[in-house]
């Protein structure tokens, strides 16, 4: 009997604290949910118009079809995968014939100053106009120059883009 009492005395406050914080978190989640969705959507929309400027987009299953003047130009899609540290998420624009129009890194957590260069135009511009099979580092037999000191990050983003581009190509064929 004594031990039951002791357990109750210990557990009731902990349970109460958990209930109160659960309720507080529900409220703050509801308060911020709309804004967070908006922020995420704005990020996606912003990067869509970077990879296909001036196009309008129709959402398909897991990619967007890019239309210019009512004609389908190509596809835009998000490619995601592990980098050197954390996930690299990038928007890719691809013409119907399998040539990349542009890529734009949405988020990444690479080493500041080294790996983060994968998000900079000097690196990402290399993808524009390349065919899927050439999206490999030069040392892996492709046409992409890796960043000095950040080979792993460079290879990661290159592989992520190519793998996803191949998938979308197969889906749309």
């Amino acid at each position: 009997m004594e031990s039951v009492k002791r357990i109750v005395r210990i557990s009731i406050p902990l349970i109460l604290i958990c209930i109160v914080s659960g309720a507080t978190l529900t409220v703050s989640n509801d308060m911020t949910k709309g804004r967070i969705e908006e922020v995420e959507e704005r990020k996606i929309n912003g990067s869509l118009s970077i990879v296909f400027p001036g196009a309008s987009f129709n959402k398909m299953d897991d990619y967007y079809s890019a239309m210019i003047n009512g004609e389908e130009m190509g596809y835009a899609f998000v490619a995601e995968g592990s980098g050197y540290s954390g996930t690299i998420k990038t928007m890719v624009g691809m013409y119907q014939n399998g040539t990349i129009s542009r890529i734009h890194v949405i988020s990444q957590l690479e080493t500041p100053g080294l790996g983060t260069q994968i998000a900079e135009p000097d690196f990402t511009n290399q993808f524009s106009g390349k065919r899927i099979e050439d999206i490999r580092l030069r040392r892996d037999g492709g046409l992409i120059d890796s960043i000095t000191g950040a080979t792993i990050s460079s290879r990661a983003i290159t592989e992520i883009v190519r793998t996803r581009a191949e998938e979308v190509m197969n889906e749309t064929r």
Partner: protein
Amino acid sequence: MKLDELTKGVFKYNPIFYLMLGLCPLLAVSTRVDNALGMSLGVLFVLVGSNVIISLFRQWIPPEVRIPCFIVVIASFVTIVDLFMHGYVPELHERLGIYIPLIVVNCIILGRVEAFASKKPVSHSLLDGIGMSIGFMLGIVAIASVREVLSTGAMTIFGYAIIPIFTETPATVMLLPPGAFLTIAIIMALINYKNIRKERK
């Protein structure tokens, strides 16, 4: 004296240079001054919030389960910071990334709650939280300033160029973990040197 509770965290018992707490986020986020300021604001909110709540309920928390209780309260505050930062300052949220959720395990917070707020009245805990956060901010901003200037050759805080150009050939190593260790070591050495000289006099 009450004001002592505020100032002790800033100088005498500075969480970074005296208590040596919270070094993990310190190493990771001190690459740029704006990141350091953002992190300090997060820590300020979580530490003051947890200190006050724990101190308010300190008599009702059974000592056997005090650590789980503290962690639940701290984790709730961190999640609130994370959600609001994501919604309202997305750029900062993106740059601080994983280090916001990791405020939960920042030992400054659990350390202050356990050693101070769970034993002292609310007003003292509030001041302690503010003082420790300011101490943390001073430390992290000092280290971030050194690292940013040396690693990028300039210093920009929220878009304002504080030091437009310092060097044309910045040292990338200062951006990487060794740069953080070196900076902390040199600052600590200077502080210790000063303290030892003071003692000798």
